């Protein structure tokens, strides 16, 4: 078994689970097609479109990015131009991203 050292790891990869800076709204994101929910840290000012892209990027190992994207929150399809704050997202809420035409 070949050994990868911890420091080598930090050099080669962006491995912070929470991103480089702590942002205020941790959310549970579920991308359609994925096998697990992911913790996404949103900025209040992020648009829902940007939030959906974040989730897509976070899940890209398992799910190919597809357009168009729809953000679902409390069973409603949201306006993607709305910000996280405007949409009323609170910490540890769930949101879903549906993608592709189907």
């Amino acid at each position, binding site marked *: 078994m070949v050994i990868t050292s911890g420091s080598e790891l930090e050099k080669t990869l962006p*491995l912070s689970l929470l991103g480089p800076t702590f942002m205020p709204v941790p959310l549970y994101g*579920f991308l359609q097609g994925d096998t697990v929910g992911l913790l996404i840290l949103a900025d209040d000012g992020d648009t829902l479109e940007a939030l959906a892209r974040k989730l897509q990027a976070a899940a890209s190992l*398992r799910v190919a990015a597809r357009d168009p994207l729809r953000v679902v929150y409390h069973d409603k399809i949201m306006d993607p131009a709305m910000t996280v704050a405007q949409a009323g997202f609170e910490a540890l809420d769930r949101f879903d991203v549906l993608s592709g035409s189907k």
Partner: protein
Amino acid sequence: MLTREEWLPLARKLDWDYSYVREDEVFPEVISGRPWLPHSEWKDWEESFKTSYREYVDNQYEKDMAVQAVHDAVGRIENVEKLALPWLNSLKVHAAALPLAEFTGVVGNLRGARFGRDSAWRTMATFGALDEYRHTQIPLLLFHPLLRLDSQFDWAHKFYHTNNWFAVAARHFFDELTVGQNAIEFHIATNVVLETGFTNLQFVGLASLARESSDHMFERMVTSIQTDEARHAQIGHPVLATVMKHDPKYAQYLVDKWFWRNWRLFSILTGLSIDYLTALEQRPYSFKEFMEEWIIDQFLRTLDEFGLEKPWYWDLLLDELDIYHHMIYASAYSYRATLWFNFVIPGPAERKWLRQKYPKYWDDMDAVWEQISERWRTVGPGPANEFAVHGTAMPTFCDLCQLPLSAGTPRKNTARVLVHEGRKYIFCSEPCQWIFLREPERYASHTDIVKRVLSGEAPAQLPNLLTEYFNLTPDTWGKDVHNGDYEWLGARKDSAA
């Protein structure tokens, strides 16, 4: 001198009326369990083995010698080295999850040995405790020396002493099942649900996988353990029958709750072993086929025998047979460095088999594996690229089972958010939320890995989380067994068709 037939009943059934204390002080409800009933309601408690201590010791000695003989013949490192790679990793899963879980069974049985409501029950629980010591020591003895072969076997001792996410989930389960449990709930949950309901997964299912994989040591070990389980599992049946007579709703609740909790854990332990960590040509059946034949049917018969109903979530459970462990495996593969064993990608032949066995949702799973394979194709194989084919965002966990939010289907994840007394919780599924809401005082203060990271208790940087919190090292954390070097990966996916 008394004959065996004369003294054994005297020794096994030795109850008396208390004159200095009340019976409910000797057997407080909080630790003996409910419903609290006077001994007159328990006095007919009986089991059929009626073993004496001497017979117990003679029998166990024979069994231990038989295991030792197999160990000497085929249990050495040279033998283990020859096992197929996926199976070796299934062994690592069990080497970690099994021994100290059995040890918590010692604690649970000792609770029954003191707080069980009839002396024959207490006698049998004493043997049960000795059995569970055996089930701790044998796998430790067999697995831990394999550390010389592979450092991931270190987790035989280490696993439950870490805050690894899977250890947190397994501890949450076993602590409730055994360590922190009253005698009545312990014996119903452990003997009736786990040992009668799910034990076949381990002892019939795994034993036959081990045989197919030519792992005669493991096969012999679980078969030998099973002979003990079959005996002490008898304790739970008369306990459940009495609870059923006095409080059938509570009996139903305990069975529903524990069947679900067991399902969550065993679908991972055994599901991954059968459908992914056994070489394709050595899989005698799929996990689903095995569940249907050996668990579902038998459990329904047990329910019938006691006059219990099917759990309310039955249809949901049957649906999960097709998908839950597949979602867990793909998620775990993509976060493999957070675990202590190695993973294999199902190749075209495996995926064809999986599609045949699991037609209902396999399209969605196939897309996931195709995407992961594509990443390996892009970055190329090799240990240096392990983390380029690894998740980087924080995965999320259920506030009841503590397992990943991987329930439902890839199209529709069934996770649900609940606000309880001003705090937010999330559950993977409706049954997990239902269990939480039945006994919130028991579960509400436990924090899952995500909340530990958010509160700063656990590090947010993956390397630190792995090494400082999950107790892994570059040596022991999980990798792809082939480091992405699969022959079929070079070829396009249409070779799967």
